[in-house]
């Protein structure tokens, strides 16, 4: 790797040539960096797809009718239906379960944060 010192012209006459060479080097480094960024972005997209795959499959299954969900080979292209969502949203058990989950999440977050706060306060005032 070159340092600042090497880029400085040794004599005024050599100056322009050196500057041009340094510019070319910078341009090459910029290109390399741009290529690196593109490569990293590509790998990142690929990894995201790997981790997202199962979730995408789950979402697509949500729009299938039962017979489409259990086929071999799997159904990739189909006419989506909202029946499943309609069934879930009009199901009393689901609505009740949703409220229960919401209630539990809210209360347990409230209690643990407030209680651990006061416990912590007690423990940090004394040094154990």
């Amino acid at each position, binding site marked *: 790797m070159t340092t600042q010192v090497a880029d400085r012209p040794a004599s005024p006459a050599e100056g322009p040539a050196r500057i041009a060479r340094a510019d070319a080097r910078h341009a090459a480094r910029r290109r390399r960096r741009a290529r690196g960024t593109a490569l990293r972005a590509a790998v990142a997209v690929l990894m995201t797809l790997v981790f997202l795959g199962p979730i995408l499959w789950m979402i697509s299954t949500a729009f299938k009718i039962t017979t489409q969900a259990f086929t071999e080979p799997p159904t990739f292209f189909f006419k989506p239906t909202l029946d499943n969502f309609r069934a879930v949203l009009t199901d009393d058990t689901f609505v009740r379960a949703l409220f229960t989950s919401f209630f539990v999440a809210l209360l347990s977050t409230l209690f643990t944060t407030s209680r651990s706060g006061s416990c912590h306060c*007690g423990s940090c005032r004394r040094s154990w």
Partner: protein
Amino acid sequence: MVPGLLFLIAFSIYPLVYSLGVSLFDWNLVDASSRKFVGLDNFTGLLSDPSFWHSTRITLLFVAVGTLLELGIGLGLGLLFFRRFPGDRFLRALLILPMVVAPIVVGLLWRYMLNVEFGVINHFLDVSGIGRRDFLGSPEWALPALLLVDVWQWTPFMFLVILAGLQGLPEEVLEAARVDGASARRIFVDHMLPLLRYPIAVALVLRVIDAFRVYDLIFMTTRGGPIDATETMSWRIYQVGFRTFDVSYAAAFSWLMLILVVAITTLILRLLVRREDLA
């Protein structure tokens, strides 16, 4: 402080002491004549119980392989997302989605995808010529399949913690190393890893504790089977305590598991965290 202490006593200390008490008795819920004091008999019984050692081995395998894979992939992903690129925030948000899915749903989803007849994964294996496999139904593939699911769900967590750690690194140190001509590999080994020690320690400890407790995933997929191939400690404890109702044996089992978890997390912290920082 007093209300905090009362809460601690009511919800942490009392159940803990109570379960320790129970573990010293011979107490089966379906046998009214039991419930007599037996001292450490439950513990000595466990130590000579092959199913205890089997579940310990399965659990340790699950925890060790799972967390290490998650750490490795998480580190790779962290380095990938360390320097900005267009759209990185969006991808990052998508990448951490598995973590948000409820474990019950994760189990159901993967059981559906791994199914030997209509599962999408087996379809691709079939098409690519590898051939179908009954992952959750064969003794040798069930544990690897569970590891795959665990790695899929929890690598994003590891990634998130490591990325936060990476972004908190002092930029001057990395810059100085770069100016001095250090290679990317050397910068990673000599500067990034030592500075990432604490985030890694925190992530590892949290993951180890969590992986030890794995239950819902197994409940939804293999139920400890086939035979006992995926019988982890928490699964075994549930079986002993709430299937055969031998609550005292289950309590002793839980205590041994707790001791093991504490020992392992302490070891991790001792290895990665400087002594004077362990306050």
